[in-house]
């Protein structure tokens, strides 16, 4: 069997806390130390109060599909078309771009409930993806 090709994202300083949490099977987003507003992807200032001070906090990993697209072409050998790219709106209100897996792309719908799962790509990188919520 041919070796599986992976596309392992770069762990930038900005995203290190995200990947550190994912390695421990937690989905983390940035939280403003001043007003508590959550944000993702990471940004230097809070969009609510302009504060530069922030930390990372774990969130539930539950949410709904805000919008999605079925990719019918793979631009990289790590992906096999068709696959589902989606923006997930987490229950905490933050949106994250990810995949919806464990379901035929043709059955994915906007508004459907999903939950996070963790896909280990390397010792350093585990990637959060989403699957239909249990129950």
């Amino acid at each position, binding site marked *: 069997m041919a070796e599986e090709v992976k596309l392992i994202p770069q762990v930038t300083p900005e995203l290190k806390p995200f990947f550190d949490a994912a390695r421990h099977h937690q989905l983390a987003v940035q939280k403003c130390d001043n007003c508590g507003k959550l944000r993702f992807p990471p940004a230097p200032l809070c969009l609510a109060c302009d504060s530069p001070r922030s930390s990372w906090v774990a969130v539930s990993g539950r949410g709904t599909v805000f919008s999605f697209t079925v990719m019918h*072409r793979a631009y990289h050998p790590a992906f096999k078309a068709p696959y589902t*790219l989606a923006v997930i709106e987490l229950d905490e209100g933050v*949106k994250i771009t990810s995949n919806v897996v464990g379901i035929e792309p043709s059955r994915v719908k906007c508004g459907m409930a999903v939950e996070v799962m963790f896909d280990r790509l390397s010792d350093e990188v585990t990637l959060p993806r989403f699957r239909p919520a249990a129950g």
Partner: protein
Amino acid sequence: MSLKGKTAIAGLGITRMGKNYDHSSALGFAAEAISLALEDAGLKRSDLDGLLVTTGVSYQGLASFALQDSLRLTTRLLADVNAGGSSAGTALAMAAEAIATGTANVVACVFADAPLKPPAPGGKGGSAGDAYGVPRGLDSAYGAFGANWVYALLAQRHMYLYGTTQDQLGAIAIAERQWANRNPMAQFYKEPLTLEEYHASRWITEPLHLYDCCLVSNGGVCVIVTSAERARDLRKPPVYILGVGQGHHPGPTLDNLDTGIPIAKETAFRMAGIELKDVQVAELYDCYTITVLLSLEGYGFCKKGEGGPYAAATRLGHGGGIPINTGGGELSSYYMWGMTPVSEAIIQARGEGGERQSPKHDVVLASCQTRNLSTHSVVVMGTNP
């Protein structure tokens, strides 16, 4: 200070478009487009004292420096202009501002790209625009490459919120093709498109079919801007720059389907002293059918959420309303980023549109966008200063 009517477009140069391998790089197409625009205007290379250059995905580096060197130009204004697909409107505004303030006198704004590579000798067919499949940070880890998927998310969300249908997106693709079938420069000049063929075309990134997505083109477009006074003495009828504006919405557009258009429109229309009802021809950036639909809503041709039924009923001027994307747009004529709407707007304003010419063309809108419609530039041009 208002720019209204102070400057005018005096020259337009458009190379052959599509699988055109006359030059090996964007710089060659840029130089050819400049030469065509000088000829069109009746100007000489030595008349140019400004050069604003935008290259597409195929050229990395400072194209304005390389082009200035190769053309041996002495200028008072020289820069690469990169606001993505929005660059053409940005460059025209910079040119008009420079001329109106005396910084430069005759400015060439040029876009060129050469993402398509010719077939290898005896080998298989050339590339099909893979250069546009660029990775995008963390998102690429999820298989997000290029721009197609971003616009697909917008289309899906629009369908979910407003009940927009695939047929309505198809109506935009077909209407543009009908315009292209009257434009000899269009890559799809000789190929009609039916709704059946639209639905049968392969998915690129669902809900976008092949024909929801723009072409990939090798080629170049140059627009020469000068003072209104000087333009009146040149070869072609002046196309006056009446208003320019930019609007940059922080996004993500997907959140509320809000765009940069209202901000850009407000600035440009105020400068031009017009309202939407005064616009007689509109050339709207159309990298995807959904881009046209959201632009129709953004400019106020219809209410937010009603772009689908509006597009299906008016068919971009074939069935009502003003003529829109009369050259066939990026979907069916050629993909020169913002220079696609800008070049066709100039052709319409001059009355050079042949079979596709709008009978009324005193006020023409060219709309350029990028980054999910969050970044926007608008040029209002017309036949009277």
